């Protein structure tokens, strides 16, 4: 029997009003403006854009405020907003080789065309809390250095010259890139679809899986061939114009992971690759994505699938933090009727168990009750 239970409208309305109050906090503290979040919590904004799978800084900042800084809640809000908009089309593929580079480092080549450019990095900081920042002091302008516009070819092109590295991943000629926002996930999946899922995947989940490969669960000897961060141009083909219309630029982080590979029945010894590409400045995420991409290519490269990070269905089915939080958090919603049924069942099983274990005591109880 299903019993509908109503109630709680007033409690819900009041709870949301209380939420709005607590979100605002102490009224004597100024309200945060979205541009403050965009400018000063930029990497948090980037994470919401990357995992919310929507490039729009102001919307991500709004989501962060509305979620009181709860990143997964903010990502959820952005995902929900996305569904309200029509889609104009697919852009032309971005060319990271022509990126306006803000950071580019390689762990495999010291001297590579374009050089090692550190950019605004946390690397080499001492990770000491800075009391001056708490005091809100002035910050010095960055230094500038004259530079010739030097091309920065992707590092993969350098190894490719020797023929020791596999080429960029190709798909069959007639392959149309899959889209997980249009078609349900199916396993096994093509690498392009996997990359789409990884790019919006939870940073913590992918980081832990990437870490597990380094610790020996699907070891694949990774080197950071290159990490680059910067702005790339977006263009869209539209019927009303005879050329691809320029939309502006987006900041992305790209990671080329280079992995030693001793060869298998399917491929000769060579360097293989894992690839990461994410919205915003999200170096850790791009690296984790590249590690997972490589691990998930186990079957393609003829490796034994022995670890979690190589298990496509496991990784991709659990990488989306909006799905994950939805299913975990729904447990707190009313399950009164379900639980009532379980309760009856456990009571009955317990009575049967006691009757089996200790028939005399049950008899005693019954008599006492009578």
């Amino acid at each position, binding site marked *: 029997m299903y019993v509908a239970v109503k109630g709680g409208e007033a409690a819900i309305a009041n709870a949301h009003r209380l939420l709005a109050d607590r979100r605002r906090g102490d009224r004597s503290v100024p309200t945060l403006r979205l541009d403050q979040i965009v400018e000063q919590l930029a990497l948090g904004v980037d994470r919401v854009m990357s995992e919310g799978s929507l490039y*729009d800084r102001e919307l991500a900042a709004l989501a962060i405020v509305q979620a009181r800084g709860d990143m997964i809640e903010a990502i959820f809000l952005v995902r929900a907003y996305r569904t309200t908009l029509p889609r104009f089309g697919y852009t032309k593929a971005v060319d990271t080789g022509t990126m306006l580079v803000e950071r580019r480092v390689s762990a495999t080549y010291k001297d590579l065309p374009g050089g*090692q450019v550190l950019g605004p990095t946390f690397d080499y900081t001492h990770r000491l809390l800075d009391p001056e920042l708490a005091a809100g002091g002035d910050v010095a302008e960055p230094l500038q250095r004259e530079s010739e516009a030097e091309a920065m070819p992707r590092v993969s092109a350098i190894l490719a010259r020797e023929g020791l590295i596999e080429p960029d991943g190709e798909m069959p000629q007639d392959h149309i890139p899959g889209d997980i926002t249009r078609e349900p996930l199916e396993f096994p999946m093509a690498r392009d679809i996997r990359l789409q899922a990884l790019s919006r995947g939870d940073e913590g989940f992918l980081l832990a899986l990437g870490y597990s490969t380094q610790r020996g669960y699907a070891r694949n000897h990774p080197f950071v061939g290159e990490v680059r961060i910067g702005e790339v141009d977006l263009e869209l083909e539209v019927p009303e*114009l005879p050329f691809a219309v*320029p939309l502006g630029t987006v900041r992305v982080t790209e990671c080329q992971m280079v992995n030693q590979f001793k060869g298998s029945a399917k491929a000769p010894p060579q360097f293989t690759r894992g690839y990461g590409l994410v919205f915003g400045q999200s170096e850790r995420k791009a690296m984790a994505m590249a590690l997972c991409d490589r691990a998930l290519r186990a079957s393609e490269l003829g490796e034994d699938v022995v670890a979690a990070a190589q298990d496509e269905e496991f990784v991709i089915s659990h990488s989306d933090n909006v799905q994950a939080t939805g299913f975990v958090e729904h447990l707190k919603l009313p399950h009164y009727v379900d639980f009532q049924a379980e309760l009856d069942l456990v009571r009955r099983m317990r009575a049967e168990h006691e009757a089996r274990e200790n028939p005399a005591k049950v008899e005693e109880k019954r008599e006492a009750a009578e």
Partner: protein
Amino acid sequence: MRGQEARDQAERKAIMATLAQSSVDDIARLWSEAGLPSEAELLRGPETGLVTVRGRIGGGGAPFNVGEATVTRATVRLPSGQVGHCYALGRDKRKARLAAIADALWQEPAHRETVETRLVAPLRAALVEARDRRRAETAATKVDFFTMVRGED
């Protein structure tokens, strides 16, 4: 003629790129300084939607979908009948409308020069300056390796 057409298309595209990357405040300020007309009929939008951003596997391989971005577009018709379009990242409808009018005005010989010199040129100069500054700031963080000589000879 064919060469001229290609040059015109390249120039029109470059102008659209400049407008797409500029802020509405800068566009509106230069617009009124240049005294450009802003009368136009909206044929479509301004409306906000999504584009799916594509990357390539390994940087240069097969395309894959990375995620979506907000884009606002508008199509306008000037009183003369000239039609103009705009597509730009973000959700700024006022900007999309102005940029579409600019695209239409640029296609009219009477307005082309004003659009180029009074509107687009200053916007482009500001974008180039910002890009050069960013490039120079990045260049200051470039690592200069030097070799330590150890031992004698």
